[in-house]
């Protein structure tokens, strides 16, 4: 069973790598090796990707430190339940009771994983690319790689647009991912501004969609407004804004005194 699942993860990882999500792909190869240490292909792909040094433990590190908003949207707060086995905090990271512990605790309340109707541990029909992608997405979710999971699920949905499992998982993953990205942006009423001069901007490595969003940022529109005027989905816009913020291209700016009436 582990061998089959590892093979599926390698395939999903390859798809992710093709779509440009190398870290997401590496996480899947690492997971495949965890399940099937004899999987030579996974090992080879990891080495080829220059990630031989990325030990499984490190690859699984959640990047949510301090991300209150990332888990705050959880619908079922309830008492904390044991973590799913597949969610492993990196060994030797932090001490019991520190911030990471808190974040891990927060994850317990989050709607990670597959819908109840979909058994992630049960046997999957073989040979279906959709199943492979679902499996990969599930594993990425357990590794907190929502971005990679959403990419796989989008691909799965393009192959099986009517599949309720794909749709449910994609909806849920996107919602969580949007929450995480918005948390990175902070107060959405703040009006970001561009930090670079026009002459410097042209040297950035952006696509036309990021270029469009960047062009709308003038210090007078809020993050919230940008979601409305981007013409893209909330997730895509949030991804772009988070990228621009992370790369220091924009600064979050100030909150307006009063918000627009719309």
């Amino acid at each position, binding site marked *: 069973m582990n061998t089959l699942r590892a093979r599926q993860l390698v395939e999903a990882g390859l798809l992710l790598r093709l779509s440009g999500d190398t870290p997401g792909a590496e996480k899947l190869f690492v997971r495949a090796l965890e399940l099937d240490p004899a999987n030579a292909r996974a090992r080879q792909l990891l080495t080829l990707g220059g990630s031989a040094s990325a030990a499984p433990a490190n690859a699984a590190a959640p990047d949510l430190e301090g991300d209150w908003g990332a888990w*705050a949207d959880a619908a079922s707060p309830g008492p904390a339940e044991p973590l799913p086995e597949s969610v492993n905090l990196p060994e030797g990271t932090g*001490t019991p009771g520190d911030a990471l512990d808190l974040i891990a605790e927060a994850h317990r309340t989050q709607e990670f994983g597959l819908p109840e109707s979909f058994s992630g541990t049960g046997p999957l029909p073989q040979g279906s690319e959709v199943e492979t992608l679902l499996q990969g997405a599930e594993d990425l979710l357990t590794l907190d790689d929502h971005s990679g999971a959403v990419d796989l699920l989008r691909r799965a949905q393009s192959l099986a647009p009517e599949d309720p499992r794909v749709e449910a998982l994609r909806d849920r993953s996107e919602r969580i991912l949007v929450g995480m990205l918005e948390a990175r942006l902070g107060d959405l009423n703040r009006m970001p501004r561009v930090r670079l001069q026009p002459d410097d901007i042209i040297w950035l490595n952006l696509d036309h969609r990021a270029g469009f969003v960047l062009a709308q940022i003038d210090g007078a529109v809020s993050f919230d407004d940008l979601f*409305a*005027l981007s013409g893209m989905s909330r997730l895509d816009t949030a991804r772009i804004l988070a990228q621009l913020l992370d790369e220091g291209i924009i600064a979050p700016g100030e909150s307006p005194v*009063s918000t627009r*009436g719309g």
Partner: protein
Amino acid sequence: MAESGPLIGIDLGTTNSLVATVQDGQPLIIKNRTGVPLTPSVVAVSKNGKRLVGGIAKRQAITNPQDTVSAAKRLIGRKFSSHPVQDALRALTYQVVCGAHDDVRIRLAGRDLAVPEVSAMILAELKADAEAHFGRPVTQAVITVPAYFNDGQRQATKDAGRIAGLEVLRIINEPTAAALAYGFGRTVNGKIAVLDLGGGTFDVSVLEINNGIFDVVATGGDTFLGGEDWDHRIIEWMVFGFAKEHGIDLRKDRMALQRLKDAAEKAKVELSSVKETQVHLPFICTPPGGGAALHLQSTLTREKLEDLTADLGERLVGITSEVLGEAKVRPSDLKEVILVGGMSRMPRIVEQVRQYFRREPCKGVHAEEVVALGAAIQAHALVAQEGELLLLDVTPQSMGVAIAGGYVRRLIPRNTTVPTSATEVFATSKDFQRTVKIMVLQGEHELAHHNELLGEFLLTGLREAPRGQVEIEVTFDINAEGIVSVSARDRDTGLRQSITVTASSGLTEDELRRIMDEQRDWLVTARASEELKTRRVELDILARDLVDALSRVRLLPGAGGLSPDVVTRAEQALDQARQVRGGEDVGALTRACEALSQSLPLLRSASPRGTPGR
């Protein structure tokens, strides 16, 4: 009239709107909450269901064309089946459907809205801007409309004001407002021309000013000529240049097109004050085969812009000449020429107007602001009862009845002060005619079918007699509220029939009340949602700080000397915050914020040495 609060004048334009007031005796424009005087007359519902008004709606117009409404003024108060609406439909990107009374309905985010509803959203935005300026509610306004608007269109504009929560003190003509802003009510006696080149329309009006009375003697123009035509020429130039260089047609990409449109408008405005400008659009598109995104960089000179738009300028002069010709007014008859609208700042246009009229046109520093300023002056005069500036309520267009041969007999000429009445005697046009149909018309055209039909009724039971021998007395009565009563009486028999015509926007009173209720509900919901959002942001910030503080305390020896109770309470506060954050209960969010706020200073008082720092 209600007790006098702040008064505003609103220029509700096809493309842009402005709000002004008179403060300390000086008219001034109220900037909107983004700090600019112009608010685009655009309303949209974004993909995430948010209602957008003004600049933000305009900026997503191309990427979200189906749910973005612009130029609603072209449709307001008109019948769906009318020629102007059918013409306008060809240029609209949003869906328009026919209402129950042949009125126009705009489909926005799955809902069919009456046009006054859409205009009300813009008015409400301007009202909110004014309230932000004054720091208190604003409820009274004067709104301007084009001189050619009929009663139905004026009533629809009034209805829009009502929906927005405004008492519309008066509807005045845009050219009159412009003339008022220049103080011409006091300083000029004679004819003046007002050339208003806005974003989407060009209106030419000739006014006769006589001791403070403003009489619109001629109006005309082109309802599809405006600043956007200049923008399109710049866009075409940019698109062509890019296609030549990269072989890519940018018009196929909505995002690129939106950026081109914004850049074109910016370049056009800049070229009114400088001789050349840089157009710089990085990452405008990604090549079809993939690869690095391409940039658009070019320099546009004023000379090039004038070259690209030479024919538009000529059209402008041609239309002006036509309107003056029809009114039998020579340029030399005019005492003044006023240029209105942002486009009239373009040096080439000023030059063309100067050449045609052989005089220097009046153009204030901000030609797009004069109409709103004039409206504010009128609002102030209405309440202050400054007689010399007080415009009288007049009939905007002539009224009359259809007569034999398909012609119109005017009983009440345009610009007649209301209340008023007029009576005229007509005779039968056919032998032994037993019935006469009275068709009440409004408009200036000699042919009946070119005028607006306000209503019709039959007078029956006439005496059988050769034509011309039965006399029918027709009386028009217009009361102070603008309600028109028309009666017809057979002078022989005394038989009488009448009709009352109330200017209608296409909405019934019930519909109007329903819309106003909905608008009120929406405002309440919007405010609640705003508060919810603010509380969530506050909660997020506090929670993040508390998580940080808690992490620090856990790393300190002996928990920084804090009692276990403090840490437990902080954890409980966090738990409570998690539980309520996703909910809609503002009270619960507020309480959770309070709990976090109480725990935070306690945790921060932890001492690195293990004893409390307090």
